[in-house]
């Protein structure tokens, strides 16, 4: 499948108009959706295409966010802070991968969960560095090309560009030779190994890319909130982003984006009325696992295709019967 360039360009240009149409509050919510889309697209590379479900991804997101906060606090410039925090995030995800890729399937889930709790524990308990539960506050956002990112619109456009780059990177990766071999290691790891592919190395690179996207999302997140605390690293946060991937449809390009929009919108709208967001999260999770295991995007696509086919049949038929069957009466 080739990338549909005009459709992409059109979607990008349309999205650019959001700050002109919507009030600042909704622009900020859109920025959140985009930040978590990057995160979910990154996780989807592991969950959807590598078949490795990580339950500790929020800790990589948090690692990059904390690194930015700490480096800015140490007096570094924005550019250096971001660069070093991405490097820190890559080192972190490399260590994560080396430990957790000794297993696959359920074992991978358990180890990433434990590693995620480890980083959470560090952020929570190492008060001297991380400020414990109080977290770290950031100063003002920087400005790019004379536009201050403290305004909602420029910040939205920045996250939009980053999100598009993330989706594009995922698209290019999955359609490349590497992507094909990654999907191969998901479906038939033994055969891939027998064919001479380095299954471990392929998975390792998938982890790096996934972790890098989580890190980018974490950096945008810390600049968005100008605040980070251990809450962002909890198992709950990891589960939330996993819910985005799975509810949208893991293993599809746009599923995670749809899932992120769904979760953020439901969360923002619902939390205005009820306090019990976690309960709802759990119920949605259980419901999707039981009744819609392949997510919204594949489900809706299937439904749409069926509707289209029905309509096509109606167009070309006489008295509701398909064309051919009027004179082909054989049983």
């Amino acid at each position: 499948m080739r990338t549909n360039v005009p459709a992409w360009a059109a979607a990008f240009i349309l999205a650019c108009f959001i700050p002109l149409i919507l009030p600042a509050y909704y622009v900020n919510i859109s920025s959140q959706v985009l930040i978590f889309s990057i995160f979910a697209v990154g996780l989807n590379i592991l969950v959807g295409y590598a078949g490795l479900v990580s339950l500790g991804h929020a800790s990589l997101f948090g690692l990059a966010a904390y690194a930015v906060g700490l480096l800015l606090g140490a007096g570094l410039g924005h550019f250096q802070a971001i660069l070093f925090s991405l490097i820190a995030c890559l080192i972190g995800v490399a260590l994560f991968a080396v430990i957790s890729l000794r297993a696959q399937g359920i074992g991978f889930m358990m180890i990433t969960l434990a590693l995620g709790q480890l980083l959470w524990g560090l952020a929570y308990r190492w008060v001297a560095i991380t400020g414990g539960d109080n977290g770290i506050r950031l100063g003002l956002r920087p400005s790019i090309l004379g536009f201050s990112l403290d305004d909602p619109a420029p910040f939205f456009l920045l996250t939009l560009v980053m999100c598009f780059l993330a989706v594009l990177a995922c698209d290019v990766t999955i359609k490349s030779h590497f992507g094909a071999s990654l999907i191969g290691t998901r479906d038939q790891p033994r055969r891939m190994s027998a064919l001479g592919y380095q299954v471990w190395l392929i998975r390792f690179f998938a982890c790096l890319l996934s972790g890098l996207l989580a890190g980018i999302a974490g950096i945008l997140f810390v600049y968005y909130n100008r605040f980070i605390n251990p809450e962002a690293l909890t198992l709950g946060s990891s589960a939330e982003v996993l819910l985005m991937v799975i509810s949208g449809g893991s293993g599809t390009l746009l599923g995670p984006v749809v899932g992120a929009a769904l979760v953020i919108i439901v969360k923002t709208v619902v939390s205005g009325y009820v306090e019990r967001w976690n309960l709802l999260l759990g119920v949605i999770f259980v419901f999707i696992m039981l009744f819609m295991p392949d997510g919204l995007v594949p489900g809706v696509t299937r439904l749409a295709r069926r509707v289209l086919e029905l309509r096509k049949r109606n167009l070309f038929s006489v008295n509701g019967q398909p064309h051919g069957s009027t004179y082909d009466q054989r049983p």
Partner: protein
Amino acid sequence: MSFWLVLITNSIALGGLLFVLSTGFSLIFGLMRIPNLTHGSLFMLGAYCGATAINALRMNFWIAALLSAFSVAIIGALIERFLLRRLAGKEQAQVLLTLGVSFIVADICLMIWSGDPISVATPGGLKGAAHFFGFAFSLYRLGVILIAVIIAVALWLMMEKTRLGAMIRAGVDDAEMARALGIKVSRLFTIIFCLGGGLAGFAGIVGAPILSVYPGLDSEMLPLALVIVILGGAGSLLGSLLGSIIIGIIFNFGNALVPDAAYFVLFLPMVIMLMLRPQGLFGRQMV
């Protein structure tokens, strides 16, 4: 000297508590091949139910403990029978389902019992300290160690000497073959979930006088059970006993000596074990 002795007693008592919690987790993992992420929630649920029975209904501690263990066991069986059963064979979906259920349980607990920690008084006969060789030991912690030993022996007898135990061992070793021999492995799933849930709930209320009960207890205990199973190996009683004692010691010593990095120290043995022996100390298959 006294400091170290107290620390060691506390470590072994915590180890005993963790054994009661993690042995069910380990058996479920060994038999069904899934980490039951509701295990921490069942622990917390047992603690909350027991605390209510003791504080509000003025029930005897041990009766309340048995009652809450029993009700949590039923909840465990219901989760297996009505939710996990629908996803039979899809392990990853089952794990995510247990994750969702754990969120629901945590939020319902927060709704019912609010966010304030609840303390539970030490039961009547075990208040105060015992003196041996001129050192004082907390009587309740010694009691917890004794309970853990009794449960360990009972479980060992069940696993080694009864027909049910033999069937469970057969299921852990080779579920397919056990099925072919006519063992209803799916019924074992319900039984083991019931047993594991009951033990987790019991651990919750027995631990309450030491740990007290508060929101977030579930996500503090679950990783401990995970680490213990990775250390000891899935489905092995002896493994979870040894793993629990190791983790109990590391947790208490870590908190006393390097409080900032207590969690970090806790997960170190897991990482080392995964590097050297991925199937755990006594496990037969890889985690």
